[in-house]
């Protein structure tokens, strides 16, 4: 489980109940040279989760069984340092401010631009050395 850290390639977890989105994200992350693990259900992610195993979490907001916000709440106690990027197909201003208030790195609206996502991942991974990147540029 320490392989990621040893090779210095960050591992990113993707949680989305839409498999085609999961797969697309996985391919995009791969071309960015990240390692990635996909989960089509938040429960599956929680089952696989171990502190330090993932360097970043990208999660959908609306999912069957458990919302992205609920997932964020569960993780905030166990792993407050895990950077979380929300993606959502809905414009949900309340959910967005709630997510950001609870410490999410970014809240992106689908469809997402590769460059914007890349910048946010980079900033999430370097979070420890930066202040909260709330003022990062939104997608163009």
């Amino acid at each position, binding site marked *: 489980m320490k392989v990621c850290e040893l090779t210095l390639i960050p591992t990113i977890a993707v949680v989305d109940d*839409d498999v*085609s*989105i999961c*797969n*697309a*994200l996985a*391919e*995009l992350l*791969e*071309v960015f040279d990240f390692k990635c693990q996909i989960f089509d259900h938040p429960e599956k992610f929680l089952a696989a989760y171990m502190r330090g195993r993932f360097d970043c979490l990208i999660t959908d907001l*609306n999912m*069957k069984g458990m919302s992205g916000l609920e997932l964020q709440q569960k993780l905030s106690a166990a792993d407050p340092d895990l950077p979380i990027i929300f*993606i959502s*197909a*809905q414009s949900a201003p309340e959910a967005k401010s709630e997510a950001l208030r609870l410490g999410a790195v970014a809240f992106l609206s*689908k*469809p*997402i*631009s*590769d460059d914007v996502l890349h910048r946010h991942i980079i900033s999430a991974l370097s979070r420890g050395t930066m202040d909260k990147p709330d003022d990062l540029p939104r997608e163009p």
Partner: protein
Amino acid sequence: MKSVDYPTEAGEPPMPAAIGQVAYWQFNVTRARALLESMDAACPGGDQEWQPDRLDMLLSAVRIVDVNDEAIRLFGLPADRDKVLDRPIASLWPEQSRAALGDLLTTVATSAHKGTVAREIPSVGRLQHVVLTGWKAFEPRCADTVFVSVRATLNAPNAVIELEASQKRYRNMISSLPIPVWQIDARPAGRIFDRLRANGITDMASYSDEHPEIVQLACDIVQVFDVNKEAMVLFGGKHRSEFIRSVKYLFSTTPGATKRVMLAHFSGVRNHVEELKVRTFDGRLLDVLLLMTFPVPGERLDTTILMMIDNTARLEAEAKLRKIEADFSHAARLSTLGEMTTSIAHEIKQPLSAILMNAQTSLRYLRRAEPNLDKVDILTSRVVESAQRAGDIIGRIQDMAGKREATSTLLDFNEVVRQCVVFLRHESEDKGVVITTKLQPDLPSVRGDRIQLQQVIVNLIVNSIQAMKTAPQVQREIYLETQLDDNARVLFSIRDTGTGIPVDHLDQIFDGFFTTKEGGLGIGLAICQSIIKAHGGEIAASNRPEGGAMFGFSIPTTARGQLQSEQSLGTFLERQDDTVPRII
């Protein structure tokens, strides 16, 4: 009137030209010869008391050789001469004058002289002062041929006045009827039909297929001889003379009408009813209901009555109503879609996001110094999949959003329900509602419009989803069920765990513009009801004892549906037949 109803001079039989209102019978008495002579021997000169059985024996032995049209009319004989000719007179001659006929035949057949013999009878049936005149054929070789003419002498002045008054009333009634009426002499066609029948033609439909010219001929030779004012107004004619010609102008605008009318006439039916399009003299195109009444034996065969009821305005109003209904139903679908915009946008964004990400990833692989084409291949295939998925979603929305005419096709009802659930999957997941279906397998198919039925089901599901907005998350459930009832109708029911329907709303819930939703049009359920009714079904709403609302509708399946439509068509035709005014 020059009336020659018996030969005035030896050797001069009655000429057809002289045949006016006189009925003629021609008999053959060969088989009755022995009886006649024994009668005459018993009582020379006739006028005996007849024993009923002797009279019957005599009249059963006398054969009919020929009759004229007037005899058919006066005596109410079958119009088909074949049913009269060569039959014994016993079955066809009226009871009151059988003895007189017996006397007459005895006297004529047995006397040597060639003069005429007459018998007067006060009344026979509806005829008064009946005079029977009999004579033998002049040709000695036809010694057994006896002619009998029948005149009802209407010498009572009252009767003449009555008759004239009655004819005048008939003319007045026709001319002042508030319905366009044509009077037609269809006998020329009747004579053609008689000849065809004599040649053994019974299947006129196939005969006219083989000889299409017969249809045109029968139409050309049948003439209109009178029309009333309403008919002139309907056709925009100025002079009656414009109407007095072949009936062709009445039927030529509707394909096949001429043939159908001819087949009806040939078949001997009383009435023929059909919807026609007619072109008026001033160029208008009208939708009319044609009602034809053919004369039947016992009536004068020279008058066929044809009436037209102008349906143009009614059909236009119906078309407008259908359009308004379609507009309303369209508005209701748009309203339902409007309530779902959020989840629709969400649903479409999913495949679009996948497409965008896969395309961006592909570009990155392509722009590398050494493009990774294997990756691009995989990613492009995924783009295709997602694009198809997006297309499907948009197609479903277009189905619902489109403005279209209702169609009628055979449908697998369970499939109709399943498509609704797919359509609303996102909406229901968004709202945290669990939809459970219990569809009875092997339902017979239903006939109807898929989009309209889906509109009803989607509307009911969306209503239920909205009714559960306030329910706690764990209890948001919808149960859909299909089954076949005892009357072979498909039953659809939807139950929810929402707030139910306020009791005082239950009666008005299907009324138009009744709504409790803010911003709701209040036409959804009214449209649902009219759609289900148009499918021959019923819809009802109730509250479940355990809480929540229940809506259900039933519609006929095809086996039963076809039966019903045939029955109702049959009833319709019978009714038409019975309600056709009998003018003659």
